[in-house]
Structure formats: structure tokens, C-alpha cells
């Protein structure tokens, strides 16, 4: 008898949860955050997907129907072009806005917090974000530079402080924020609609929330890579203090996953990999804060997926030190056998099918690689099949081979 969507939904949720929490599922689950691939497969450019939410949903449905992942991301990674253009986002380029129509959006490095502003950030992060980060990040919110410090509103503080809102530039910025909020609501409504639609088809959403490691919160859009690298040597004390704050922010960003059917908080790790810093620097500036954030998220009921984007083999000795059965490490470049040996019984593993192979290889190459992964890393559970990095250009027949082979060969008997 054919299973109902409801049964399939429960089956998929259980399969993914079992793999994440160290139990042996019925088979190796397969899922992942894909970007361009989903749209290209449906004959849609990323520019179209970012501009037309209904079209993006349709493309994602096509991918879902044809590939049947165990959990799905949907259109969340096709960021909404309209509000981004309206706001004039300064640290991002995207299709039709500095990049060609079918090129994935990319981040532009810069210093959005200056070296001498650490104290200000540490003292009142919200005020810093309002008066410095927002105006530097969005053309339409430049008027927020004069935003009053809310911490001083008490007693009769408000009398002087509220005059800031009489300023025409401030008023314009507020108007713009209202308009952007409306535009963003349309996008979130589209995401919500998609989630309902796929649930009815029997597919759970793969994410509950997104977050970033405490180090990367500072290193990505505040100080920039160069800035934070320099700070590790030239202002270590300030950086360490700021990391205390961003550890809390990392937990706040990610906590929303708690309570979801798949309570997965995806932490996108950009800068902790091999090559960025020494082992000693990693042990000082990176891991202790990430570890605390992971623990905080687990305490709040989340399962944490650490999405590693580089070579993280040298970091394995740190990765073992997390709450058991609550963490998934996604690996791009990794000695997978060693990872299995060290992490089995502690944390689950996902990823590692090279994106290069999916673009330039053959279905047989892909199957051989997946077989090796299932035999090596999938042994006794704890593995989720996924690509090495967010999937963009790839041959559909290779991606199909990855899915079909995993469904056939990945069954636990």
C-alpha cells in the first residue's frame, strides 16, 4: 500500500533525526542546502528566482518532486532582490546588481566596524548596529546614524532623545525601514507558504534557524577577514571581549530552531578552517566561543549543524568536545575516515561529495564516491549524504545518481 504524505513526512523526520542523533536510521538520509542548481535545473536564472517568489517556489517544487530529498531548504537561499535593491545593500553583489543574471550572489569584503570601535560595540551592540552598522550597510538607512541611544530614555531622558526623530533624514530612514519591512514580509510569506506546501507533500523543512560562529559574526560583516586577522595579533583583548558578546548573538540567532519538527540550527562556518589561523589561535579565538554557542543552542533544544566550508581535518580534535548526539558536522574537505573514527558516537557527519565531481564527473564516478562514503562514514549510522559545498553548477544526471544511489545502496539492513 502506498504511504500517505503524512506517513512519509514522519518517516523522513525520523530518518533525519536518527542520523543526526547517532541512532541507525532505516537508510542514509540525503539532503542539503543547494543554491543555483535548483533553479538552473528548472530552467530559471537566479535573477528570476530572486525577483519572482512564485517562480522560485515553482522551481523548488520541481527539484523536490524530481529528487525527493529527505528534508528541503526551499527558496530561502534565493535572497529577495527587491528589498535588497530598495535598501541598497552595500556588502553584497547579486544577479542584476553588480553580477550577471545567472551568477550566485557574493559578499564584498570591507570594514563595517572600524578597529577603534570595539569598545562602542562591546558597550552597547544594539546602539552600534543602529548608528554605525546599518548606515554603512544600507544606503536607504543612512539616516539611522542619528538614532538615539535607547539606554538613556529612562526618567526624562526621552525628552531630548526623541527629538532625533524630528530630523528629516531620520524620518526618511524610518519610512524606508517600514517599506523594506513590508517588502520582506512578502518574501517571508512566500517561504511560509512553501513550507506548508511541502509538508502536505510529505517533506519536512531542513532548517529551523541559521546562525554564524561567534568569530565569523565579527569577521564577516563587522571587521572583515583582514580586520579580524589583524585584531588577533594587534588587539587580542578587545577581540576576546567582543567574542563574549557574539557568542550570545550566535545563540540568539540560532535558538529559533527549537521546537521545529527538525530543530536544526545551521551554523555557517567561514573562517575557522585550516589555513586561516594556527592551532593555538584557533584554540584561543575560535573554538572556545563556538563550543559555548553550541552548548547554549543544545540547551535550548536545538540540534546544531556546523557547516564547514574548508579543510577542517586539523580541527577534529576540538570537534569531539561537544554534547553527544546533538551536533552534525558538515564537511567540505576532510579526511572522512579519520572523522568517522574520531566522531562516531559523539556527533554525526554530512557532506563531502565534491562539487567538482558533480560538475565534471560522470554518474559512475559519483556513485563510486557515494559508495565509499556510505561504506566508510555511513557505517552504523550517523551520516547524511550531501555535497561538499552549496550546490551551484552541476550536471543533473550526476546529482540524480547521488540521490538514487544513496536511496538504493544506503539502506541499513
Amino acid at each position, binding site marked *: 500500500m502506498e504511504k500517505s504524505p503524512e506517513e512519509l513526512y514522519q518517516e523522513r523526520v525520523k530518518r533525519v533525526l536518527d542520523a543526526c542523533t547517532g541512532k541507525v536510521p532505516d537508510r542514509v538520509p540525503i539532503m542539503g542546502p543547494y543554491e543555483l542548481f535548483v533553479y538552473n535545473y528548472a530552467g530559471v536564472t537566479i535573477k528570476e528566482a530572486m525577483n519572482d517568489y512564485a517562480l522560485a517556489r515553482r522551481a523548488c517544487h520541481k527539484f523536490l518532486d524530481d529528487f525527493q530529498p529527505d528534508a528541503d531548504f526551499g527558496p530561502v537561499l534565493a535572497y529577495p532582490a527587491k528589498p535588497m535593491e530598495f535598501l541598497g545593500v552595500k556588502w553584497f*553583489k547579486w544577479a542584476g546588481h553588480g553580477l550577471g543574471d545567472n551568477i550566485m550572489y557574493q559578499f564584498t569584503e570591507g570594514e563595517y566596524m572600524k578597529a577603534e570601535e570595539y569598545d562602542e560595540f562591546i558597550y552597547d551592540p544594539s546602539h552600534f548596529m543602529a548608528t554605525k552598522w546599518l548606515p554603512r550597510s544600507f544606503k536607504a538607512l543612512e539616516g539611522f546614524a542619528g538614532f538615539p541611544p535607547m539606554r538613556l530614555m529612562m526618567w526624562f531622558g526621552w525628552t531630548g532623545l526623541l527629538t532625533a526623530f524630528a530630523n528629516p533624514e531620520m524620518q526618511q530612514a524610518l519610512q524606508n525601514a517600514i517599506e523594506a519591512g513590508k517588502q520582506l514580509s512578502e518574501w517571508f510569506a512566500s517561504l511560509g507558504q512553501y513550507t506548508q506546501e511541502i509538508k502536505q507533500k510529505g517533506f519536512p523543512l531542513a532548517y529551523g534557524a541559521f546562525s554564524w560562529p561567534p568569530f565569523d559574526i565579527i569577521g564577516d560583516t563587522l571587521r572583515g577577514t583582514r580586520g579580524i586577522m589583524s585584531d588577533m*595579533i594587534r588587539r587580542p583583548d578587545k577581540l576576546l571581549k567582543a567574542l563574549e558578546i557574539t557568542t550570545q548573538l550566535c545563540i540568539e540567532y540560532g535558538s529559533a530552531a527549537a521546537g521545529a519538527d527538525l530543530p536544526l540550527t545551521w551554523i555557517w562556518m567561514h573562517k575557522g578552517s585550516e589555513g586561516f589561523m594556527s592551532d593555538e589561535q584557533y584554540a584561543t579565538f575560535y573554538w572556545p566561543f563556538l563550543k559555548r554557542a553550541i552548548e547554549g543552542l543544545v540547551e535550548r533544544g536545538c540540534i546544531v549543524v556546523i557547516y564547514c566550508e574548508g579543510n577542517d581535518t586539523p580541527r577534529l580534535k576540538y570537534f569531539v568536545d561537544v554534547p553527544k548526539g546533538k551536533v552534525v558536522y558538515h564537511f567540505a574537505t576532510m579526511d572522512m575516515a579519520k572523522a568517522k573514527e574520531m566522531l562516531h558516537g559523539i556527533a554525526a557527519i554530512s557532506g563531502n561529495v565534491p562539487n567538482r565531481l558533480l560538475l565534471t564527473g560522470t554518474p559512475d564516478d559519483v556513485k563510486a564516491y557515494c559508495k565509499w562514503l556510505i561504506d566508510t562514514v555511513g557505517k552504523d549510522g550517523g551520516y547524511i549524504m550531501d555535497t561538499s559545498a552549496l550546490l551551484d553548477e552541476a550536471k543533473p544526471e550526476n546529482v540524480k545518481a547521488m540521490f538514487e544511489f544513496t536511496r538504493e545502496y544506503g539502506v541499513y539492513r
Partner: protein
Amino acid sequence: MTKEKLVDAIANMRDQEAIQIAKQMLDAGVDPHVVLEAGHEAMAIVGERYERKEYYLPELVVAGEILKEIAELAKPKIRGETAAQTTPRGKVVIGTVEGDIHDIGKEIVAFMLEVNNYQVFDLGVDVPAERFVEKIREVNPEIVGMSGFLTLAFDQMRLTVEAIKEAGLRDKVKIMIGGAPMDEEAAKYIGADAYGEDAAAAVKLANQWTGGN
């Protein structure tokens, strides 16, 4: 004596001390070229330590910052005469291929090649194939370096190699590729001569190709 102290301070990341020594030297009338030379000697040490994996990105960035600050102090004191130029070991044209705007990895490679006495022509990011071809024609390099972080870079690099071939320049240059999704297999697909895992590997390749160790 003081020059050695300056080299030591820069190479060991004592930023404030390095800048103070540089100031003192310049105030005492030391030839600004000597100060700049100290900077270059220190960079060579930093480069070696990076290759030995004793130093990582933070040290490269800070060394670069100190050097820049010292150069700013020294430059106003330089009168006319230029320092003796050493002959570069080779010329390298480098860039991140069209469609891709990732720059950090490429900059580190450029930096390490410069430290190792290569003359580097950095074309920046989002570099179309024709730009590579034009620059190769113009400066006649021994080596071309292509960087890419996105999957689109595979075909864009292949196209760039194709364009270099069509321009009749393929035999004149050795081509290396690098970037997160790249590997040896990618080098074959693209038609490059080699893949380098990091900046140290890039220097090693360049040295081999220019007839050294």
C-alpha cells in the same frame, strides 16, 4: 644594528616597537631605503614562516600592515634616488576569473609570490578571459595564476585557458589554479599545468617553473 632590531620586531609581530624603531631611525637621519629594506627582509622571514606553517593569515596581514605604516613614514624622506632594484625571479599575471569576486586567497598568493621576488601583475577579481590575454601579451610573464571560489570558475578557467591558447600564448606560459573547490582533477579539466593547494604551493610551483627548487 638598529636595522636588525627593526627586522626582528616586524618578523615577530611586535607592531608598536617596529613602528617606533622605524621612526627613530628616520629621525636620526638613517637612509629611508635602509628602513624599507628592513621591511623587505622581515617580509621574507614572515614568508618563510608561513611556508613552514608557523605563521598563518593573521601574521601575513599584520606584517603587511606594519610594512605599509613604515613605508608611509619613510616615503616623505626619500629624495630622488631610487633603491637598487633586484631582478625579479619571474613575472606572474594573476587574477580571480570572471563572475567570481573572491579576493583574499588570490591576494595571499600574490603577496607570497612578491615576497619570493616575483613581479606580480594582479588583475583583481571578476577578470574576463580577454583581460588575461591582453596582460600576457603586454608583460610576457612566465606564469599565469587563476583563482576561483565558485563552481562557475571551472568553466570560466577552462574558457580562459582556451582564449590563451587561441591567442597563441599557451606555450609561453605555465598556468596554475587555486581556490576552495579546485583540485588536481580540476586542473586537468581546465587545461592548467598545475593546481596549488595554498600560497606556499604556488611559490613552490613558480620556483620549479622558473628553474629553481
